[in-house]
Structures are given as C-alpha cells and as structure tokens.
C-alpha cells in the first residue's frame, strides 16, 4: 500500500515494470516516497528474517539429526482442564491474541493516516496490552514446562534438543515481542502528547508533522507476528 506520508512529495510515479526501472534508474531515492526511517526498518527486518530463518533451520537440523526420539508437541503442549486434555490449547490462545494484536495495530496505522490522535494512541495501547498478554502466557508456558522437568539440557520425554530449541526460539521471539511492547508504549505516549503533530524533530520523530513513526512501528509488529506463524507451524504443529 502506498504511504500516505511524505506530503511534500508531489511527483507522480509510473506504474508497473517501467516504473520499477524508472525508480531504480532515477537520482536521489530508489524507493520514492519512502522515508529514511521506513527504509531502515524494512532492511532491518530483512536482516532479522535471516536471523529467525537460521534459528529455525538450525532447530530442524537438530531435530532431524538427533538420535533420541522427539517429544510429541501436541501432548507436551496440552492443557489439562476439567479432566480433559486439550492439545495446544494455550498455544492456540496465544496465537489468537497475537494475530488479534496485528489487527489492532493495522487499525492504529489507519488512524495514524488520518492523524486521529486519540484513536491512534488507544489502539496502540490495545496492541501493547495484547502483546503483553502474549508474553505473559509465554511466561506461564515456560513455568509449566520447567515445573514438568524441561531444561535446556534435558527433558522427561526424549531428545534434549527439544528443550534447548524451545527455550532458545520462543525466548528469542518473546524478546522481540517484549521490545515491541516497550516501543508501542513509547510511541503511543508520543502520539498522545502530540509529538507527531509538531514540525519539530525529536527522538523517533522526523518532524514532518505526520504519524509515520506509528507505521514504522507497525512494520515491526506485523513482522513479529509473521515470525510467530512460522514458529507455530514448525515447532508446535510439526
């Protein structure tokens, strides 16, 4: 989707392949109407994609090369409620919460396009709350597994790489979510205080008088959600 920001840029852009070639052949900027901050976030996410891809590939290698049997994820990650075992119940709720947070984030970005200060700040706080809820449930999950004897170096059910991969990958993703929550709150506060409405540079604000910081935050947040989908598929469902 084309950014609503960069109001000072009036140039018309060509469409399609010829537009692509024209952009790359032009001076000043390859990605027209993309600010420095947004370009930086995209490249950072590309690099981070490789980090998570390497973590997941390393986990798959460990899983396929270990001699001991791999624990059954749907049994390990089951909740015992009212005499019934619900496989992957907690993980399903966590996934639902995180995907929902992407929804509220998208709504926040939409409000930011319209420079609607109050809805933007509130929707970002809602996103932060859902993200914090996700991290909280992850902490519960870690506690439960640790109490059942899962350690990075051993677990009661089979290959020791199970616990190691679990703590490493969910820990690294959880760290990303936590960082995201912190910055959601920071940016929401800046929106609320009207920092983005001023034509003045400040920390995390280019001073263009627009809400682009919200959109850049959204890029990061959707990325963290997308990564979770892959972790969910490759670690929990496989």
């Amino acid at each position, binding site marked *: 989707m084309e950014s609503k920001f960069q109001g000072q840029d009036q140039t018309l852009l060509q469409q399609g392949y010829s537009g692509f070639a024209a952009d790359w052949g032009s001076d*000043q900027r390859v990605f027209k109407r993309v600010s420095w901050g947004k370009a930086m976030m995209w490249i950072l996410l*590309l*690099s981070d994609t490789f980090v998570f891809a390497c973590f997941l590939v390393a986990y798959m290698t*460990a899983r396929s090369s270990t001699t001991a049997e791999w624990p059954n994820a749907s049994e390990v990650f089951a909740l015992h409620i009212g005499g019934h075992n619900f496989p992957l119940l907690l993980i399903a709720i966590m996934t639902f919460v995180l995907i929902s947070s992407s929804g509220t984030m998208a709504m926040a970005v939409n409000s930011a396009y319209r420079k609607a200060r109050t809805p933007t700040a509130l929707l970002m706080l809602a996103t932060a709350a859902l993200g914090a809820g996700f991290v909280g449930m992850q902490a519960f999950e870690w506690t439960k597994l640790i109490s059942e004897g899962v350690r990075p170096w051993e677990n009661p059910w089979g290959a*020791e790489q199970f616990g190691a991969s679990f703590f*490493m990958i969910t820990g690294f993703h959880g760290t990303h979510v936590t960082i995201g929550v912190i910055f959601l709150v920071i940016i929401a506060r800046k929106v609320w205080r009207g920092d983005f409405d001023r034509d003045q540079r400040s920390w995390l604000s280019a001073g263009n008088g627009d809400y682009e910081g919200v959109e850049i935050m959204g890029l990061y947040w959707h990325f963290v959600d997308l990564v979770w989908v892959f972790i969910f598929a490759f670690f929990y469902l496989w």
Partner: protein
Amino acid sequence: MVDRGSDDRMQLPPREVADVMPPHAHSWIGRYVFSQDAKYIALQYSGTAVAIGLVALVLSWLMRLQLGFPGTFDFITAEAYYQFVTMHGMIMVIYLLTAIFLGGFGNYLIPLMVGARDMVFPFVNMLSYWVYLLAVLVLVASFFVPGGPTGAGWTLYPPQAVLSGTPGGAQSGIILMLVSLILFIIGFTMGGLNYAVTVLQARTRGMTMMRLPLTVWGIFTATVMALLAFPALFVACVMMLFDRLLGTSFFMPALVELGEKLSYGGGSPIAFQHLFWFFGHPEVYIVALPAFGIVSDLIAVHARKNIFGYRMMVWAIVIIGALSFIVWAHHMYVSGMHPWFGFFFATTTLIIAIPTAIKVYNWVLTLWQGDIHLTLPMLFALGFIVTFVNGGLTGLFLGNVVVDVPLSDTMFVVAHFHMVMGVAPIMVIFGAVYHWYPKITGRMLNEAMGQIHFWVTFIGAYAVFFPMHYVGLVGVPRRYFEIGEPEFLTAPVDGLNAFISSAALIVGAVQVLFLFNLYWSLRRGREAGGNPWRAASLEWQTPETPPRHGNWDALPDVYRWAYDYSVPGAPEDYIAQTDPWVSDGEDRRL
C-alpha cells in the same frame, strides 16, 4: 552506454528530500569523543581496527617464529601457538578488514561520494562504533583471563572449541570470543543499516545508481551481504554459547573426555559448520567487494581513463555478491558430503570465476593505453591485480572436490586465502589510504617512505606466500605447532620455513614505517590542495579540505558519471561530476 553530460540532462529533477543540516555538536566531547559525524566515526573505526590489527600482526610474527625456528622460543607453547593462530585469523578477518572497509571507508566515503551531508542516522552510526569498540575490548580481555583466549582456530569448530583440550575451551576464552562476535554483529548492523539506506535513499540531485563510483557499489553490496550473512554467525554464536554455558547439545554429539562420558549428546557439529560458512563465504566477498570497487576508482584516476565496462563492473559486483551465498559448502568438502552436493557447490564456486574474471579483464583494459601515473595508489592497485589473480587461480584448484581433498588442511590453503583475501585487500587498503589521505588531512603522504613501504610489502608478501604454496604441496599440514620430519613430506621444508619467517618479520616491520608516515605527514607532508589527483568523483569537489561537518555549502548537483577522464575537447583532462560541461561539437555519446 557512457553517461556523458548532454543537454537533456542539464534539467535536474526537483529535490525530493528537504536539505537538512545535521545538528552540530557544541561540546568538545560531542565533537571528538561521541561524534556523530560519519567522517570522524570513520577515523575512530579505522584507528581501532588498525590498533587491534597490530596485535594480530604481532601474533603472526610469533607464529612464524615458531614455524621457522621450531624449538628456539621456549615461551611459545603448543597451546599458545593455537591461541595465536585463532586470534590472528579472527582479528584480521572480522575486526580489521570488515571493520576498516565498511566502518572506515564506508563511513568516510559514502556520504561524500553520493553527495549527502552525513549518514541518514548519525546517532545510530555513532552507537555502531561504540558497540564495535566494546566488541574489541571484550576480545582483548580474553587475552588476560585465566586460560587465555580461545585456541579453537578462527572457524571455532565444535565440539573441540568448547572442550578442555582446546585452550580457553573449558575456561572463559571461548565465551568472550563468542560474546565479542555477537557484539560486533550488533554494532555492524547499526552501521550497515546506515550505509545501505544512505546509498539507496540519500543521494543528491542527478546522482543515479549508475553514476555512483564503483567504490560505493562495492561497499554498498558488501553491506547488504553482511546484513544477510552475519545473522548466520550470530545464530551459530548464540547456540554455541548455550552449548558452553547452559549445557545444551546443539552442536555436541555424545563424547568421552579424559575417560569420562560428558553429558552432551545428539547434536550435530556439521550444523555449526553450515551456519559458520553460510556467513564465512560471503564474508570473503564482504572484504573483497569494497576492495574491487576502490581499486577500480584508483586505476581510473591514476591511469586518467574511464573505467572499462562500468555497467559490467556493477553487475559483476552484484552477481558475485549473490553467488557467494550458494557456495559455502566448498569449505566443507572434507567434512563429509553427498557427492551431488559436492558437485553442486563445486559448480557454483567455479561459476564465480566468470564475473571475477570480467572484473580483472576490465581493470587491465582500463590500464590499456591509459596515461598510467605510477603513483603510490597506482602501484598498490597494480600489486592488488597481480596478487588477486594469483590467489584466484589457486582458488580454482581448491574449488574442485577431487583437487581440494588432498590439498585441504595443508599450507597450500593458507597460502591461497592469504593471497586472495589477505594480501590483496590489504594492498587496496594501502592504496586507498595513499589516495584519500590528502582529502582526510589536506596533506600528501611522504613519497619516499611510501615507495619503500610498497616495494618491501609487495616483494615481501610474495616471498612469504609463494613458497608457502610449495610447502603445502609437499604435504605440510596447516595449524601444526611443530611438524618435525615426517616420512610423508616429499621434500624438506626447514630452509623454506626459515626463509618465509624472515620475510614475514621484514614485511611486518615495514608497516611501522607506514604508520610513522601517517603521523609524520600529518604536519610535514606537502600541502595537497582540494583535488591533488585531479579526480572527477564528488568527494574531491568539497568546498573545504578536509571536508567540514555537513560536507557541503549547498548540496552538489551531479551531471555525469565519476569517470570522465581524458575526454576529447574538454578544457581539462577530467570533468568533475558537478561540472555541467557539454561538448559543443558533435554528439559524442556512445
């Protein structure tokens, strides 16, 4: 193809991004310690890289003393020798070459060459340096902890890297090494985002991607590669750190150590090798591509000719960068591999020879019938071409599985990679310093000291590494503390080893002369003026030399590529990129 100035190009498009002066620091600390000026950060990066590089140089002396004169130096134990090997390799590849090309030359040249006032995020750029310095300090700290630094070899292969038989394996040496690498990667990422976004999004009016000097293309492509390759090293370091500290078994199979079964089991050491070399092979080109780019500019300026086949040069850089991500397992032929994989990786490896050869031909064709000035930058550029061809040809040997298997882990490999990614890029670094020192300081480096420096370095490097190929061919394995006189050697090598070591000591010593020259010329060098080489690219057109914070008065407008040398009919033998000169004769666009 050639992008000469013409009437329809006189109309530049309007400025898309507002020209904002980066905020000036007023305090002394803000200017000279926590500076956010890319040029100053570049000098901080370079100074730190050279300082730690000197440590690595001394380590190589110590190694050569042991290999050349075994048994003479009591203080060099086998453990110490392995620590020297490891630290020498790691420092040279990561903390010197990568840091100086990207953090040093990248920071200094990118904003000047694309016509920007600074990097796009000066604060993040400053953080990049300080995290890099922290990484270096952690690395240095490992020399002073009990057990000393790790002696696992620069590849840090597990399981040996974290076991008690390897120096620093059971103590803190390996931990500090891994932590330092993780810090380096974080620091680099902050800088790398800056370099990439500045090239893509912060060029001045008229500066298209295809008007960028090849220096910028080389550094830019290397930066993008580093942003995609370092994640693999990051993950490998984190996982090995967990193996060492938490007792996980990502890379650790079941092991017996000193008759005792360890608690490790089920991990895959090969997985580490894949992760390491998925980083490690692009790393070779992360070091080489900036060198390719810089040397292209040195040759064009000092032969007063446009670079031959500019577009081909750009595409060769990009293709080499892309291909380097699918060749990594050629470092692992002897690790055990399905023959089809060996076939695949040998093929992709040899295909890289094509764009590389294009570059070498184009350098030679640029020199062809050029007005070659044998200045110091040109001498080093010529030294680079010769050395790179030598090292590249032995690469063709090692890229083939059947040739690599007997040569792998011999001194032949050591000679190969020192030629191709040690001596060759360092030649370019020297050439680049002689070339840009006048812009950085306003004075020329001393010519006499420079001549001594070049000839001793060039001849000395060949005296070191040419015989080393032979030493490897007769069967001397690499990373052996002491070889003795085993039966499998087809010829004695003692005399050669002593010769190599003597040459290495001399080559190392002459670098001190170079450093002295840097210091001496700062005050006593000849005044250079703004453009002593009469070069066309933007960094030589700054209103002040050295360029001040913000680089320009008004941002420059660019009307042509960076290689308009010896253009017929032009008032001078070069046309600056900012010069809107148009031939009033016939249209000479090719």
